[in-house]
């Protein structure tokens, strides 16, 4: 390559004219980025608008008949302003048990609860199991397959886990049986489903979630936190060394100076992570799982040796609570599947699928898990939140749902059971029975169509900090999930959901207040 020095005249010719300089300065001033180190301290507090919110989904196979989980008496419902098909009534205004599933034992949680009826999958033209329910679609049984489940979208959102956050695991997924119906899935490069990895049993949960906590010794930063600080420090040192390199040009040095200033800000953010309470140490757990067998045999098949399934679930709940408090993860997904009666305490015969002898028995079996969710909600309610203040339930969204809206063979995807706990960091209203069935009430082949279920999921995501632009990417091309206003379920071919064409990508109103 040629090597000629520039003359002084040539160098001077390169200088910008005054006009060019002013234009350049104008661009620079107008586009000056908001580097943290240049901002007043009070602005820094305003930047952090979104609270750290925890997500817990509990999903059961099949469903529960509408009348088993919603109030028998639905008089005195109040219409929600501006909505033709949303009515509500405070849960506290219902006398006695709300329903067979939501009995009187839930009353202390009413201020944090919602029971939402009418949530309907607005896609698909097929009655059948719906292991896509958490993606707001009914596409699992046919092609194309749309979207991602919301626990995956939440886990991958940079607005949920920010660059400076240090957590042990971004998501934890438990499954008790039938792994391929885990309901949680990402997408492979070829567009096919990538079923999320699930764990089984309290030993696996402990190993995945509790090893990030110190083992009872003096409280110190975790290994991941220490590494993260070291890495950012080293990047800073590399840049400082680079800045002093004599072959860095003046204009490049100016750019690097700005970059170094930004890395300096990053160092502060990484080191200013929340100080967790001293109780964030590894718990002592009396494990109920004694062995390990084939996953489809869990938890009662040969090889597993679970002492008490109920006690094992209690271990889950305690570890979920501790992990939420100590920010070991913010996403919990607990998928339930078909058990025999050994799993459901008090069960007498059959499983949770077609085997249940009646609508009532099916409801009672599902109620066991709704009550486990209420147990988790109470544990969250009674635990201070060291990150946001208040209690964990204030800053969590926990929900129980099913894949279908009916028991046994109907496989109806309308009126899916939807019971929530928590206020989602102040973005979720609570304390209500919310009836979203379409008005005037009119059954179609015995079932009520209602609002898009995906609006509920969108509200959950929004409360976690996922933006509309983010979740809109994952669906049928028209937004999150699947929206087909001429859905042909049960042989009908009518514009069942046309009235939601303009709002189906918004979070569920009234429920979502963010």
């Amino acid at each position: 390559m040629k090597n000629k020095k520039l003359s002084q005249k040539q160098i001077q010719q390169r200088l910008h004219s005054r006009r060019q300089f002013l234009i350049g300065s104008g661009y620079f001033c107008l586009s000056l980025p908001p580097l943290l180190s240049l901002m007043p301290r009070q602005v820094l507090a305003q930047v952090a608008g979104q609270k750290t919110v925890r997500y817990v989904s509990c999903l059961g196979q099949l469903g529960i008949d509408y009348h088993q989980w919603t109030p028998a008496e639905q008089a005195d419902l109040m219409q929600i302003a501006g909505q033709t098909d949303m009515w509500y009534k405070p849960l506290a205004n219902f006398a006695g048990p709300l329903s067979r599933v939501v009995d009187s034992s839930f009353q202390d949680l009413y201020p944090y609860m919602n029971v939402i009826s009418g949530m309907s999958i607005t896609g698909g033209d097929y009655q059948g199991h719906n292991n896509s329910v958490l993606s707001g679609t009914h596409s699992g049984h046919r092609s194309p397959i749309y979207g991602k489940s919301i626990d995956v979208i939440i886990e991958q959102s940079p607005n949920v886990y920010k660059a400076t956050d240090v957590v042990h695991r971004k998501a934890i997924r438990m499954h008790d049986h039938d792994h391929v119906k885990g309901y949680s899935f990402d997408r492979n490069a070829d567009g096919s489903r990538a079923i999320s990895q699930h764990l089984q049993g309290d030993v696996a949960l402990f190993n995945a979630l509790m090893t990030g906590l110190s083992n009872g010794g003096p409280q110190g930063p975790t290994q991941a936190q220490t590494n993260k600080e070291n890495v950012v420090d080293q990047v800073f040192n590399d840049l400082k060394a680079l800045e002093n390199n004599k072959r860095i040009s003046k204009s490049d040095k100016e750019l690097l100076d700005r970059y170094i200033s930004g890395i300096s800000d990053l160092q502060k953010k990484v080191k200013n992570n929340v100080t967790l309470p001293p109780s964030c140490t590894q718990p002592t757990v009396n494990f109920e799982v004694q062995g390990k067998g084939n996953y489809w045999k869990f938890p009662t098949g040969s090889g597993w040796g679970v002492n008490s399934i109920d006690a094992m679930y209690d271990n889950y709940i305690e570890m979920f609570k501790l992990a939420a408090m100590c920010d070991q993860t913010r996403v919990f997904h607990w998928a339930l599947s078909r058990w025999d009666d050994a799993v459901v305490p008090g069960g007498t015969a059959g499983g949770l699928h077609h085997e249940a002898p009646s609508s009532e028995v099916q409801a009672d079996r599902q109620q066991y898990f709704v009550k486990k969710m209420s147990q988790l909600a109470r544990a969250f309610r009674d635990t201070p939140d060291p990150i946001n203040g208040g209690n964990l339930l204030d800053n969590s969204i926990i929900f129980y749902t099913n894949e279908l809206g009916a028991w046994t063979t109907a496989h109806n995807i309308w009126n899916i059971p939807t019971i929530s706990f928590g206020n989602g960091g102040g973005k979720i209203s609570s304390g209500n029975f919310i009836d979203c069935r379409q008005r005037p009430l009119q059954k179609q082949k015995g079932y009520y169509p209602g609002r898009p279920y995906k609006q509920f999921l969108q509200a959950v995501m929004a409360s976690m900090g996922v933006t509309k632009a983010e979740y809109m990417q994952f669906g049928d091309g028209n937004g999150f999930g699947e929206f087909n206003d001429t859905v042909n379920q049960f042989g009908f071919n009518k514009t069942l959901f046309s009235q939601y064409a303009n709002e189906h990508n918004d979070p569920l109103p009234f429920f979502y207040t963010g």
Partner: protein
Amino acid sequence: MLGNSKIIRMILLGSAVLLYQNCGGFESTEQALLASSSSAVSFKCTDDSQASETKSLLLSKQQLTNAIEDLFGVTTLNNVSGALSSLGEPINDSTTHARQSLVSSAEIDSFHSIAQAVAADVVGAQSRRENVFGACASMATPGPNCIDNFINNFAVKIFRRPLKPEESTFIKNLANSGGDYLTNLEAVLSYSLQSPYFLWRLELGEGGNHTPERTYLSQYEIATRLSFATIDSVPDDALLAAAKQGQLSNLAQIKAHAERLLQTPRGQEKVADMLSWWALADRAKDVSNLPAELTGSLELDGLNEAMSDELRVFVKQIVFQEQGSFRDLMTSKKSFASHAGLAEIYGHNPVTGVQPASFGGRRQGLLMRASFLTHDTFRTSIIHRGVDFQKRYLCNNIPSPNVNIMGDRDADALTHAELLETTNRESIAHQTKDPVCMGCHSVINPTGFAFENFDSFGRLRDQEMIFDSEDNNSFVRTLPIDTNTVIPMSGNNDVPVSDAYDLITSMVETGEGAACMSRNLFRYVFEKREERVDDCELQRVYEGLNNPDQPLLEAVVELIANEHIGEKVH
């Protein structure tokens, strides 16, 4: 009706020479060229040893995305799409494509977040982990030297050079710092992906033969510069191997790699990106709300995407499949429109196979495709077409009007009633008749007039449909189109044309188009505005483009693998 077209042409001709000197000027690295007798085609190459300053750039979002895919695979890329979405696109000047070299806290946080996400994904999956760190990384107790696999192999791809001793030491200590090994590997990968040597395209040279004004690049730095210029990504294995063996030491070796890389799918995409940018393919307007009488039976669903897609197919066909020249690109009548609406616009049946159709009527080449011609109102935008064409395709510096001039222009606008009896051309001529306006509009208007035989969908027409904007865009009448005009080009060359077809032919014949394209290719590839000292390089590129027998791709190779690829001018 306002006069006739002859009168307008006389006014334009008479006023153009006097007024044009008040409006911008054709691009030259020497502004004195403006309104002189010289042509913008004439670059002033006086010292081939000189070149303009090269600034270090951060990887753009596209480059980082490509790099992640090339280094770690498409599965990882998909899995970190959420983190990637937080990173904004770099800001490039709309005309000169010069990168606005700004750095924000949000951008740094995004780089940090992306590095963390990639590291977690790669280390979390056994196959991907072993691909990066070797099989020993999955053993129960990896030995202290296990990390050497990474240091000596994969890290070279990330850093785009062998690691320095201090970098190797830091990585080795981090990997063996105790605790969970995989947690440490995540930190190692996260560090590597946040290193300024990965995120910045830094050129520090090697050896001692540098001057204060110029640094001479190492073989690895040449490989990096070449790679990002051709495929917008990190060097591939062949390029790194060539750098290691010192086989990027002369232009012949470098050009061979440039040609190889440009032929790859990513290289072809880069050329398609480049020419789409030049063709203003991203300017397609929303045509979904135009009057029904104007829309007719045109299929609108997916039309805008089809415009962009077809243009890219066309570019790849001409540049790569046919090894066509600049002239071929500008004059070919081939169309690949498979979308019913776009095919109707282009005047042929939808293309169903690989064989192209042919444009109907007076339409040719890259610049008469629909995306440039669309407008979101029933009256086409003569001014936007004129300004865009002059700036992007003839490299004429048309300034934005100041508020006072816009006030003069608005004051001369026709009334609503007059507009119902007036063609778009007549309306614009009347609205911009003020001598202050004509300073620029003597150039802008004739260029826009030449395209008036294309409606707001980009369809050919010989009658203009007039609609009443105050009566729900109801149809009023048709008026005949007049596209005859005189286009002022550089060097006071006034070129009479009967329509835009003639204009395109003229810009090809005169070399004006090739000259301007050489500047735009330079701007796109190097993300900076050319300077006077770049004229020798521009001259070479121009000569290649202006040669009807030379493939356009050769000019691109000449531009990228140029005399100065081995040096960084400060």
